Protein backbone atom coordinates (compact mmCIF):
# COMPACT_ATOMS: atom_id res chain seq x y z
CA UNK A 1 0.00 0.00 0.00
CA UNK A 2 2.90 2.31 0.76
CA UNK A 3 4.08 1.97 -2.81
CA UNK A 4 1.30 4.19 -4.03
CA UNK A 5 1.94 7.11 -1.72
CA UNK A 6 4.25 9.97 -2.60
CA UNK A 7 3.48 10.03 -6.30
CA UNK A 8 5.54 8.47 -9.04
CA UNK A 9 8.30 11.09 -9.14
CA UNK A 10 9.87 10.64 -5.71
CA UNK A 11 10.69 6.92 -6.08
CA UNK A 12 12.20 7.53 -9.51
CA UNK A 13 14.56 10.19 -8.15
CA UNK A 14 15.37 8.03 -5.18
CA UNK A 15 16.18 5.03 -7.33
CA UNK A 16 18.36 7.20 -9.59
CA UNK A 17 20.17 8.33 -6.46
CA UNK A 18 20.79 4.70 -5.57
CA UNK A 19 22.44 4.12 -8.91
CA UNK A 20 25.41 6.45 -8.45
CA UNK A 21 27.88 3.59 -8.06
CA UNK A 22 26.70 2.04 -11.31
CA UNK A 23 27.36 5.33 -13.08
CA UNK A 24 30.79 5.65 -11.46
CA UNK A 25 31.67 2.08 -12.41
CA UNK A 26 30.70 2.64 -16.02
CA UNK A 27 32.69 5.88 -16.11
CA UNK A 28 35.81 4.21 -14.71
CA UNK A 29 35.34 1.31 -17.10
CA UNK A 30 35.13 3.77 -19.98
CA UNK A 31 38.32 5.59 -18.94
CA UNK A 32 40.30 2.43 -18.24
CA UNK A 33 39.33 0.70 -21.47
CA UNK A 34 40.05 3.83 -23.51
CA UNK A 35 43.52 4.23 -22.05
CA UNK A 36 44.36 0.52 -22.11
CA UNK A 37 43.14 -0.01 -25.67
CA UNK A 38 42.83 -3.73 -25.09
CA UNK A 39 40.84 -5.26 -27.98
CA UNK A 40 38.98 -7.75 -25.73
CA UNK A 41 37.59 -4.90 -23.65
CA UNK A 42 35.97 -2.23 -25.82
CA UNK A 43 34.78 0.87 -23.95
CA UNK A 44 31.09 0.87 -22.90
CA UNK A 45 30.36 3.71 -25.33
CA UNK A 46 31.57 1.55 -28.21
CA UNK A 47 29.45 -1.37 -26.99
CA UNK A 48 26.36 0.83 -26.76
CA UNK A 49 27.03 2.30 -30.19
CA UNK A 50 27.36 -1.19 -31.65
CA UNK A 51 24.18 -2.37 -29.92
CA UNK A 52 22.34 0.61 -31.29
CA UNK A 53 23.67 -0.02 -34.78
CA UNK A 54 22.91 -3.73 -34.69
CA UNK A 55 19.52 -3.79 -33.06
CA UNK A 56 18.00 -0.42 -32.23
CA UNK A 57 18.36 1.70 -35.34
CA UNK A 58 15.30 0.32 -37.10
CA UNK A 59 12.19 2.16 -38.25
CA UNK A 60 9.86 3.64 -35.65
CA UNK A 61 7.09 1.39 -36.89
CA UNK A 62 9.08 -1.56 -35.53
CA UNK A 63 9.72 0.16 -32.20
CA UNK A 64 13.17 1.04 -33.58
CA UNK A 65 14.10 -2.61 -33.78
CA UNK A 66 16.15 -3.65 -36.79
CA UNK A 67 15.51 -6.78 -38.82
CA UNK A 68 18.63 -8.18 -37.21
CA UNK A 69 17.13 -7.63 -33.77
CA UNK A 70 13.91 -9.37 -34.75
CA UNK A 71 15.79 -12.34 -36.17
CA UNK A 72 18.15 -12.52 -33.19
CA UNK A 73 15.69 -12.05 -30.34
CA UNK A 74 12.45 -13.35 -31.83
CA UNK A 75 13.34 -17.04 -32.05
CA UNK A 76 15.29 -16.90 -28.81
CA UNK A 77 12.36 -15.46 -26.88
CA UNK A 78 9.96 -17.91 -28.49
CA UNK A 79 12.16 -20.84 -27.40
CA UNK A 80 12.64 -19.38 -23.95
CA UNK A 81 8.94 -18.90 -23.27
CA UNK A 82 7.89 -22.06 -25.09
CA UNK A 83 10.22 -24.22 -23.04
CA UNK A 84 9.42 -22.42 -19.83
CA UNK A 85 5.65 -22.67 -20.33
CA UNK A 86 5.82 -26.35 -21.24
CA UNK A 87 7.93 -27.03 -18.15
CA UNK A 88 5.49 -24.96 -16.07
CA UNK A 89 2.46 -26.97 -17.20
CA UNK A 90 4.20 -30.33 -16.77
CA UNK A 91 5.89 -29.37 -13.51
CA UNK A 92 2.79 -27.95 -11.85
CA UNK A 93 0.56 -30.86 -12.87
CA UNK A 94 3.06 -33.49 -11.77
CA UNK A 95 3.88 -31.51 -8.65
CA UNK A 96 0.25 -31.34 -7.54
CA UNK A 97 -0.22 -35.06 -8.15
CA UNK A 98 2.92 -35.91 -6.18
CA UNK A 99 2.12 -33.40 -3.46
CA UNK A 100 -1.35 -34.85 -2.97
CA UNK A 101 -0.21 -38.46 -2.84
CA UNK A 102 2.54 -39.41 -0.36
CA UNK A 103 2.57 -42.85 -1.94
CA UNK A 104 3.32 -41.53 -5.44
CA UNK A 105 5.97 -39.32 -3.91
CA UNK A 106 7.65 -42.35 -2.29
CA UNK A 107 7.81 -44.11 -5.65
CA UNK A 108 9.18 -41.15 -7.57
CA UNK A 109 11.49 -39.49 -5.04
CA UNK A 110 14.72 -41.26 -6.08
CA UNK A 111 14.07 -40.56 -9.76
CA UNK A 112 13.38 -36.89 -9.06
CA UNK A 113 16.50 -36.60 -6.90
CA UNK A 114 18.58 -38.05 -9.72
CA UNK A 115 16.88 -36.05 -12.44
CA UNK A 116 17.43 -32.70 -10.80
CA UNK A 117 21.04 -33.53 -9.98
CA UNK A 118 21.95 -34.16 -13.63
CA UNK A 119 23.64 -31.03 -14.96
CA UNK A 120 21.29 -30.16 -17.86
CA UNK A 121 24.05 -29.01 -20.26
CA UNK A 122 25.39 -32.58 -20.33
CA UNK A 123 22.18 -33.65 -22.04
CA UNK A 124 22.48 -31.14 -24.88
CA UNK A 125 24.59 -33.48 -27.04
CA UNK A 126 22.12 -36.29 -26.36
CA UNK A 127 19.09 -34.20 -27.30
CA UNK A 128 20.92 -33.06 -30.42
CA UNK A 129 21.47 -36.69 -31.41
CA UNK A 130 17.99 -37.87 -30.51
CA UNK A 131 15.98 -34.93 -31.83
CA UNK A 132 16.38 -32.59 -34.72
CA UNK A 133 19.09 -29.99 -34.66
CA UNK A 134 17.72 -26.61 -33.71
CA UNK A 135 14.48 -25.84 -31.93
CA UNK A 136 13.33 -29.32 -30.79
CA UNK A 137 16.64 -30.13 -29.12
CA UNK A 138 16.81 -26.64 -27.63
CA UNK A 139 13.29 -26.89 -26.25
CA UNK A 140 14.05 -30.30 -24.76
CA UNK A 141 17.13 -28.89 -23.03
CA UNK A 142 15.19 -25.99 -21.55
CA UNK A 143 12.24 -28.12 -20.44
CA UNK A 144 14.44 -30.76 -18.84
CA UNK A 145 16.56 -28.15 -17.08
CA UNK A 146 13.87 -25.87 -15.67
CA UNK A 147 11.19 -28.36 -14.73
CA UNK A 148 12.87 -29.33 -11.44
CA UNK A 149 12.50 -26.12 -9.45
CA UNK A 150 8.88 -25.85 -10.64
CA UNK A 151 8.12 -29.46 -9.75
CA UNK A 152 9.79 -29.36 -6.34
CA UNK A 153 8.23 -26.06 -5.36
CA UNK A 154 4.80 -27.24 -6.43
CA UNK A 155 5.17 -30.44 -4.40
CA UNK A 156 6.28 -28.36 -1.44
CA UNK A 157 3.41 -25.91 -1.83
CA UNK A 158 0.82 -28.63 -2.26
CA UNK A 159 2.04 -30.48 0.81
CA UNK A 160 1.94 -27.25 2.77
CA UNK A 161 -1.77 -26.59 2.20
CA UNK A 162 -3.37 -26.10 5.59
CA UNK A 163 -5.22 -29.23 6.67
CA UNK A 164 -8.07 -27.16 8.04
CA UNK A 165 -8.52 -25.43 4.69
CA UNK A 166 -8.88 -28.83 3.07
CA UNK A 167 -11.32 -30.02 5.73
CA UNK A 168 -13.37 -26.85 5.38
CA UNK A 169 -13.57 -27.45 1.65
CA UNK A 170 -14.68 -31.03 2.15
CA UNK A 171 -17.30 -30.16 4.74
CA UNK A 172 -18.76 -27.43 2.56
CA UNK A 173 -19.06 -29.93 -0.25
CA UNK A 174 -16.45 -28.61 -2.70
CA UNK A 175 -16.10 -30.85 -5.72
CA UNK A 176 -12.73 -32.30 -6.64
CA UNK A 177 -12.15 -29.64 -9.28
CA UNK A 178 -13.22 -26.86 -6.90
CA UNK A 179 -10.82 -28.21 -4.31
CA UNK A 180 -8.02 -28.15 -6.88
CA UNK A 181 -8.73 -24.75 -8.42
CA UNK A 182 -10.10 -22.85 -5.44
CA UNK A 183 -8.11 -24.32 -2.57
CA UNK A 184 -4.99 -26.33 -3.41
CA UNK A 185 -3.76 -24.25 -6.31
CA UNK A 186 -4.21 -20.82 -4.68
CA UNK A 187 -2.67 -22.08 -1.43
CA UNK A 188 0.34 -23.51 -3.25
CA UNK A 189 0.64 -20.47 -5.53
CA UNK A 190 3.29 -18.54 -3.56
CA UNK A 191 5.65 -21.52 -3.73
CA UNK A 192 4.77 -22.24 -7.35
CA UNK A 193 5.55 -18.66 -8.31
CA UNK A 194 8.89 -18.81 -6.52
CA UNK A 195 9.69 -21.92 -8.57
CA UNK A 196 8.52 -20.32 -11.80
CA UNK A 197 10.71 -17.28 -11.25
CA UNK A 198 13.76 -19.39 -10.54
CA UNK A 199 12.93 -21.45 -13.61
CA UNK A 200 12.72 -18.34 -15.78
CA UNK A 201 16.27 -17.26 -15.02
CA UNK A 202 17.43 -20.85 -15.43
CA UNK A 203 15.66 -21.01 -18.79
CA UNK A 204 17.71 -18.06 -20.03
CA UNK A 205 20.94 -19.84 -19.04
CA UNK A 206 19.90 -23.04 -20.81
CA UNK A 207 18.73 -21.11 -23.84
CA UNK A 208 22.21 -19.65 -24.19
CA UNK A 209 23.86 -23.07 -23.83
CA UNK A 210 21.46 -24.69 -26.26
CA UNK A 211 21.90 -21.94 -28.84
CA UNK A 212 25.66 -21.82 -28.50
CA UNK A 213 25.95 -25.55 -28.79
CA UNK A 214 23.47 -26.56 -31.39
CA UNK A 215 21.90 -23.47 -32.81
CA UNK A 216 21.80 -21.71 -36.11
CA UNK A 217 20.34 -18.45 -34.87
CA UNK A 218 19.31 -16.54 -31.82
CA UNK A 219 21.20 -14.41 -29.39
CA UNK A 220 23.32 -17.22 -27.91
CA UNK A 221 24.50 -18.25 -31.36
CA UNK A 222 25.18 -14.60 -32.15
CA UNK A 223 27.32 -14.37 -29.02
CA UNK A 224 29.50 -17.32 -30.00
CA UNK A 225 29.74 -16.19 -33.61
CA UNK A 226 30.88 -12.72 -32.54
CA UNK A 227 33.53 -14.21 -30.28
CA UNK A 228 34.83 -16.57 -32.96
CA UNK A 229 34.93 -13.71 -35.49
CA UNK A 230 36.79 -11.42 -33.06
CA UNK A 231 33.94 -8.89 -33.18
CA UNK A 232 34.39 -7.90 -29.55
CA UNK A 233 31.91 -5.00 -29.40
CA UNK A 234 29.30 -7.39 -30.83
CA UNK A 235 30.16 -10.01 -28.26
CA UNK A 236 29.91 -7.54 -25.40
CA UNK A 237 26.69 -6.23 -26.89
CA UNK A 238 25.20 -9.73 -26.71
CA UNK A 239 26.38 -10.07 -23.13
CA UNK A 240 24.82 -6.75 -22.10
CA UNK A 241 21.64 -7.63 -24.00
CA UNK A 242 21.39 -10.97 -22.20
CA UNK A 243 21.87 -9.23 -18.87
CA UNK A 244 19.15 -6.71 -19.73
CA UNK A 245 16.88 -9.52 -20.85
CA UNK A 246 17.42 -11.39 -17.58
CA UNK A 247 16.75 -8.24 -15.60
CA UNK A 248 13.59 -7.41 -17.55
CA UNK A 249 12.22 -10.94 -17.34
CA UNK A 250 12.78 -11.07 -13.60
CA UNK A 251 11.25 -7.64 -13.00
CA UNK A 252 8.25 -8.37 -15.19
CA UNK A 253 7.66 -11.63 -13.41
CA UNK A 254 7.96 -9.97 -10.00
CA UNK A 255 5.35 -7.46 -11.07
CA UNK A 256 3.02 -10.26 -12.11
CA UNK A 257 3.70 -12.08 -8.87
CA UNK A 258 2.81 -9.00 -6.82
CA UNK A 259 -0.50 -8.69 -8.61
CA UNK A 260 -1.48 -12.34 -8.41
CA UNK A 261 -0.28 -12.86 -4.85
CA UNK A 262 -1.52 -9.60 -3.32
CA UNK A 263 -3.55 -11.63 -0.83
CA UNK A 264 -0.44 -13.52 0.23
CA UNK A 265 1.54 -10.41 1.11
CA UNK A 266 -1.45 -9.00 2.95
CA UNK A 267 -2.03 -12.19 4.89
CA UNK A 268 1.65 -12.43 5.81
CA UNK A 269 1.80 -8.89 7.11
CA UNK A 270 -1.08 -9.35 9.51
CA UNK A 271 -0.32 -12.83 10.83
Amino acid at each position, binding site marked *: MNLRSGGPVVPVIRSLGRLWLVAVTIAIWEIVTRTAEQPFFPPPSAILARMHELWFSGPASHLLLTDQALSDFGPSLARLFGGWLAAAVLGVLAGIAIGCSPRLSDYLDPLIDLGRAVPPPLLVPFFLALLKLGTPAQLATIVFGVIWPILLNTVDGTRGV*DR*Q*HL*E*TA*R*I*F*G*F*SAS*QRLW*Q*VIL*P*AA*MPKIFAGLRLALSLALILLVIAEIFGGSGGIGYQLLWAQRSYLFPDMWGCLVMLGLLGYLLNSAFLLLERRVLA*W*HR*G*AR*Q*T*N
Partner: protein
Amino acid sequence: MLKITDLVHSYGSHRVLDGVSLSVAEGELVSVVGPSGCGKSTLLRSIAGLVRPSGGSILLGGRPIDRIPDNLAIVFQDYSRSLFPWMTAMSNVALPLRRRGLDRRRSREAAMAALDQVGLADAGGKYPWEMSGGMQQRVSIARALAYRPALLLMDEPFGSVDAQTREDLEDLVLRVCAHQGMTILLITHDIDESVYVGDRVIVLTRSPARVAADLEVGLGGSRDQIATRQLDEFVRLRAEVGRLVRGGSTTATTVLEQH
Protein backbone atom coordinates in the same frame (compact mmCIF):
# COMPACT_ATOMS: atom_id res chain seq x y z
CA MET B 1 -31.96 -34.94 14.38
CA LEU B 2 -28.58 -36.15 15.66
CA LYS B 3 -28.32 -39.33 17.67
CA ILE B 4 -25.02 -40.67 18.93
CA THR B 5 -24.95 -44.04 20.64
CA ASP B 6 -21.99 -45.58 22.46
CA LEU B 7 -19.37 -43.77 20.42
CA VAL B 8 -15.89 -45.17 20.99
CA HIS B 9 -12.65 -43.97 19.49
CA SER B 10 -9.00 -44.76 20.09
CA TYR B 11 -5.81 -43.43 18.59
CA GLY B 12 -3.63 -46.51 18.70
CA SER B 13 -3.88 -47.79 22.26
CA HIS B 14 -4.97 -44.40 23.57
CA ARG B 15 -8.73 -44.28 24.08
CA VAL B 16 -10.26 -40.81 23.70
CA LEU B 17 -14.00 -41.51 23.50
CA ASP B 18 -15.34 -44.16 25.82
CA GLY B 19 -18.98 -44.79 24.98
CA VAL B 20 -20.41 -41.32 24.40
CA SER B 21 -24.17 -41.17 23.86
CA LEU B 22 -26.10 -38.00 23.22
CA SER B 23 -28.83 -36.60 21.03
CA VAL B 24 -29.76 -33.24 19.62
CA ALA B 25 -33.33 -32.41 18.65
CA GLU B 26 -34.32 -30.22 15.71
CA GLY B 27 -33.91 -26.51 16.43
CA GLU B 28 -31.94 -27.10 19.60
CA LEU B 29 -28.64 -25.50 20.59
CA VAL B 30 -26.68 -28.02 22.60
CA SER B 31 -23.36 -27.11 24.12
CA VAL B 32 -20.82 -29.77 24.89
CA VAL B 33 -18.38 -28.79 27.60
CA GLY B 34 -15.46 -30.69 29.05
CA PRO B 35 -11.93 -30.28 30.31
CA SER B 36 -9.25 -29.41 27.76
CA GLY B 37 -8.00 -32.40 25.80
CA CYS B 38 -10.92 -34.62 26.79
CA GLY B 39 -11.80 -35.63 23.26
CA LYS B 40 -14.35 -32.92 22.39
CA SER B 41 -12.72 -32.27 19.07
CA THR B 42 -12.59 -35.94 18.19
CA LEU B 43 -16.31 -36.12 18.90
CA LEU B 44 -16.96 -33.18 16.59
CA ARG B 45 -14.70 -34.53 13.88
CA SER B 46 -16.50 -37.87 14.01
CA ILE B 47 -19.85 -36.16 13.51
CA ALA B 48 -18.39 -34.20 10.60
CA GLY B 49 -17.19 -37.44 9.00
CA LEU B 50 -13.55 -36.36 9.19
CA VAL B 51 -12.69 -39.13 11.62
CA ARG B 52 -14.00 -42.67 11.37
CA PRO B 53 -14.76 -43.71 14.95
CA SER B 54 -13.62 -47.11 16.22
CA GLY B 55 -17.09 -48.06 17.40
CA GLY B 56 -20.65 -46.94 18.11
CA SER B 57 -23.05 -45.18 15.79
CA ILE B 58 -23.86 -41.67 14.69
CA LEU B 59 -27.19 -41.03 13.02
CA LEU B 60 -27.82 -37.69 11.36
CA GLY B 61 -31.44 -37.26 10.30
CA GLY B 62 -31.81 -41.03 10.70
CA ARG B 63 -28.91 -41.85 8.37
CA PRO B 64 -25.58 -43.25 9.58
CA ILE B 65 -22.53 -41.13 8.84
CA ASP B 66 -20.16 -43.06 6.61
CA ARG B 67 -18.66 -40.09 4.79
CA ILE B 68 -18.83 -36.31 5.06
CA PRO B 69 -22.55 -35.44 5.25
CA ASP B 70 -23.68 -32.92 2.67
CA ASN B 71 -26.05 -31.05 4.95
CA LEU B 72 -23.63 -30.06 7.64
CA ALA B 73 -21.60 -26.91 8.21
CA ILE B 74 -18.82 -26.12 10.60
CA VAL B 75 -17.34 -23.06 12.31
CA PHE B 76 -13.80 -23.68 13.52
CA GLN B 77 -12.02 -21.87 16.31
CA ASP B 78 -9.15 -20.83 14.09
CA TYR B 79 -10.85 -18.61 11.51
CA SER B 80 -7.53 -17.74 9.85
CA ARG B 81 -7.07 -21.38 8.89
CA SER B 82 -10.68 -21.87 7.89
CA LEU B 83 -11.43 -18.81 5.76
CA PHE B 84 -9.54 -18.83 2.47
CA PRO B 85 -7.17 -15.84 2.51
CA TRP B 86 -7.10 -15.62 -1.30
CA MET B 87 -10.85 -14.96 -1.50
CA THR B 88 -12.91 -11.97 -0.44
CA ALA B 89 -15.44 -12.37 2.35
CA MET B 90 -18.14 -12.52 -0.32
CA SER B 91 -16.46 -15.36 -2.21
CA ASN B 92 -15.75 -17.24 0.98
CA VAL B 93 -19.46 -17.21 1.78
CA ALA B 94 -20.75 -17.64 -1.77
CA LEU B 95 -18.49 -20.38 -3.08
CA PRO B 96 -20.01 -23.29 -1.12
CA LEU B 97 -23.44 -22.20 -2.33
CA ARG B 98 -22.59 -22.94 -5.94
CA ARG B 99 -22.68 -26.59 -4.94
CA ARG B 100 -26.18 -26.15 -3.61
CA GLY B 101 -27.39 -25.60 -7.13
CA LEU B 102 -27.53 -21.83 -6.93
CA ASP B 103 -26.25 -19.94 -9.95
CA ARG B 104 -23.67 -17.19 -9.62
CA ARG B 105 -26.10 -14.35 -9.12
CA ARG B 106 -28.35 -16.14 -6.65
CA SER B 107 -25.46 -17.44 -4.59
CA ARG B 108 -24.07 -13.92 -4.34
CA GLU B 109 -27.45 -12.65 -3.21
CA ALA B 110 -27.70 -15.34 -0.56
CA ALA B 111 -24.14 -14.59 0.56
CA MET B 112 -24.97 -10.89 0.75
CA ALA B 113 -28.01 -11.63 2.92
CA ALA B 114 -25.95 -13.80 5.26
CA LEU B 115 -23.23 -11.14 5.56
CA ASP B 116 -25.96 -8.63 6.33
CA GLN B 117 -27.29 -10.89 9.09
CA VAL B 118 -23.94 -10.92 10.84
CA GLY B 119 -23.57 -7.16 10.44
CA LEU B 120 -21.01 -7.19 7.64
CA ALA B 121 -23.10 -5.90 4.76
CA ASP B 122 -20.33 -3.50 3.73
CA ALA B 123 -17.40 -5.87 4.09
CA GLY B 124 -18.13 -8.28 1.24
CA GLY B 125 -15.25 -7.01 -0.88
CA LYS B 126 -12.68 -7.27 1.88
CA TYR B 127 -10.12 -10.03 2.25
CA PRO B 128 -9.94 -11.88 5.57
CA TRP B 129 -6.59 -10.34 6.42
CA GLU B 130 -8.07 -6.88 6.08
CA MET B 131 -10.47 -7.63 8.95
CA SER B 132 -10.23 -8.02 12.70
CA GLY B 133 -10.47 -11.48 14.26
CA GLY B 134 -14.05 -10.90 15.34
CA MET B 135 -15.05 -9.84 11.82
CA GLN B 136 -13.38 -12.89 10.33
CA GLN B 137 -15.27 -15.16 12.69
CA ARG B 138 -18.48 -13.35 11.66
CA VAL B 139 -17.66 -14.23 8.07
CA SER B 140 -17.28 -17.90 8.95
CA ILE B 141 -20.59 -17.76 10.78
CA ALA B 142 -22.18 -16.11 7.74
CA ARG B 143 -20.75 -18.85 5.54
CA ALA B 144 -22.36 -21.48 7.76
CA LEU B 145 -25.68 -19.62 7.87
CA ALA B 146 -25.87 -19.15 4.11
CA TYR B 147 -25.19 -22.84 3.61
CA ARG B 148 -28.43 -23.61 5.52
CA PRO B 149 -27.19 -26.86 7.02
CA ALA B 150 -29.39 -29.33 8.87
CA LEU B 151 -26.79 -29.30 11.61
CA LEU B 152 -24.20 -26.64 12.42
CA LEU B 153 -21.12 -27.71 14.31
CA MET B 154 -19.14 -25.07 16.18
CA ASP B 155 -15.73 -25.96 17.55
CA GLU B 156 -14.70 -23.43 20.22
CA PRO B 157 -16.02 -20.72 17.89
CA PHE B 158 -15.27 -17.85 20.26
CA GLY B 159 -11.99 -19.15 21.62
CA SER B 160 -9.68 -16.86 19.67
CA VAL B 161 -11.30 -13.46 20.17
CA ASP B 162 -11.22 -10.94 23.00
CA ALA B 163 -13.85 -10.92 25.75
CA GLN B 164 -16.01 -8.09 24.38
CA THR B 165 -16.09 -9.58 20.86
CA ARG B 166 -16.84 -12.94 22.39
CA GLU B 167 -20.01 -11.65 24.05
CA ASP B 168 -21.10 -9.94 20.83
CA LEU B 169 -20.59 -13.16 18.88
CA GLU B 170 -22.45 -15.25 21.46
CA ASP B 171 -25.46 -12.96 21.15
CA LEU B 172 -25.16 -12.93 17.38
CA VAL B 173 -25.28 -16.72 17.25
CA LEU B 174 -28.24 -16.84 19.63
CA ARG B 175 -30.11 -14.23 17.59
CA VAL B 176 -29.58 -15.56 14.08
CA CYS B 177 -30.09 -19.15 15.12
CA ALA B 178 -33.38 -18.39 16.79
CA HIS B 179 -34.31 -16.50 13.64
CA GLN B 180 -33.42 -19.36 11.29
CA GLY B 181 -34.41 -22.20 13.62
CA MET B 182 -30.96 -23.70 13.23
CA THR B 183 -29.83 -26.88 14.98
CA ILE B 184 -26.44 -26.39 16.58
CA LEU B 185 -23.90 -28.46 18.44
CA LEU B 186 -21.39 -26.13 20.06
CA ILE B 187 -18.20 -27.36 21.66
CA THR B 188 -16.45 -25.29 24.29
CA HIS B 189 -14.25 -25.55 27.33
CA ASP B 190 -15.78 -22.40 28.80
CA ILE B 191 -18.32 -23.25 31.48
CA ASP B 192 -20.05 -19.84 31.48
CA GLU B 193 -20.43 -19.89 27.76
CA SER B 194 -21.83 -23.41 27.67
CA VAL B 195 -24.64 -22.40 30.00
CA TYR B 196 -25.23 -18.98 28.48
CA VAL B 197 -25.73 -20.14 24.89
CA GLY B 198 -27.10 -23.65 25.41
CA ASP B 199 -30.63 -25.00 25.53
CA ARG B 200 -28.95 -28.02 27.01
CA VAL B 201 -25.43 -28.60 28.33
CA ILE B 202 -23.72 -31.93 27.95
CA VAL B 203 -20.73 -32.34 30.25
CA LEU B 204 -17.98 -34.73 29.28
CA THR B 205 -15.59 -36.34 31.74
CA ARG B 206 -11.84 -36.17 31.64
CA SER B 207 -10.24 -38.35 28.92
CA PRO B 208 -11.36 -40.93 27.94
CA ALA B 209 -14.57 -38.98 27.49
CA ARG B 210 -17.92 -40.18 28.73
CA VAL B 211 -21.07 -38.17 29.28
CA ALA B 212 -21.04 -37.03 32.91
CA ALA B 213 -24.33 -35.17 32.79
CA ASP B 214 -26.98 -33.91 30.41
CA LEU B 215 -28.51 -30.78 31.88
CA GLU B 216 -31.56 -28.87 30.74
CA VAL B 217 -30.95 -25.10 30.81
CA GLY B 218 -34.10 -23.45 32.12
CA LEU B 219 -33.26 -19.90 31.10
CA GLY B 220 -35.84 -19.37 28.39
CA GLY B 221 -35.32 -18.12 24.87
CA SER B 222 -34.11 -14.56 25.25
CA ARG B 223 -30.87 -14.00 27.09
CA ASP B 224 -28.90 -10.99 28.14
CA GLN B 225 -25.21 -10.86 28.87
CA ILE B 226 -25.72 -9.10 32.20
CA ALA B 227 -29.19 -9.99 33.42
CA THR B 228 -29.08 -13.68 32.49
CA ARG B 229 -25.75 -14.19 34.20
CA GLN B 230 -27.25 -12.87 37.45
CA LEU B 231 -30.18 -15.30 37.50
CA ASP B 232 -30.15 -17.95 40.22
CA GLU B 233 -30.70 -20.67 37.64
CA PHE B 234 -27.61 -19.50 35.71
CA VAL B 235 -25.46 -19.36 38.84
CA ARG B 236 -26.67 -22.78 39.96
CA LEU B 237 -26.03 -24.41 36.58
CA ARG B 238 -22.65 -22.79 36.25
CA ALA B 239 -21.61 -24.14 39.64
CA GLU B 240 -22.84 -27.59 38.83
CA VAL B 241 -21.20 -27.73 35.41
CA GLY B 242 -18.03 -26.41 37.00
CA ARG B 243 -17.97 -29.16 39.58
CA LEU B 244 -18.65 -31.82 36.96
CA VAL B 245 -15.92 -30.53 34.65
CA ARG B 246 -13.44 -30.58 37.52
CA GLY B 247 -14.30 -34.23 38.00
CA GLY B 248 -16.52 -33.89 41.08
CA SER B 249 -19.12 -36.61 41.53
CA THR B 250 -21.93 -34.34 42.69
CA THR B 251 -25.08 -34.93 40.72
CA ALA B 252 -27.84 -32.52 39.91
CA THR B 253 -29.94 -33.77 42.79
CA THR B 254 -27.28 -33.35 45.47
CA VAL B 255 -26.70 -29.79 44.27
CA LEU B 256 -30.39 -29.12 44.59
CA GLU B 257 -30.43 -30.53 48.11
CA GLN B 258 -27.65 -28.22 49.16
CA HIS B 259 -29.71 -25.23 48.11
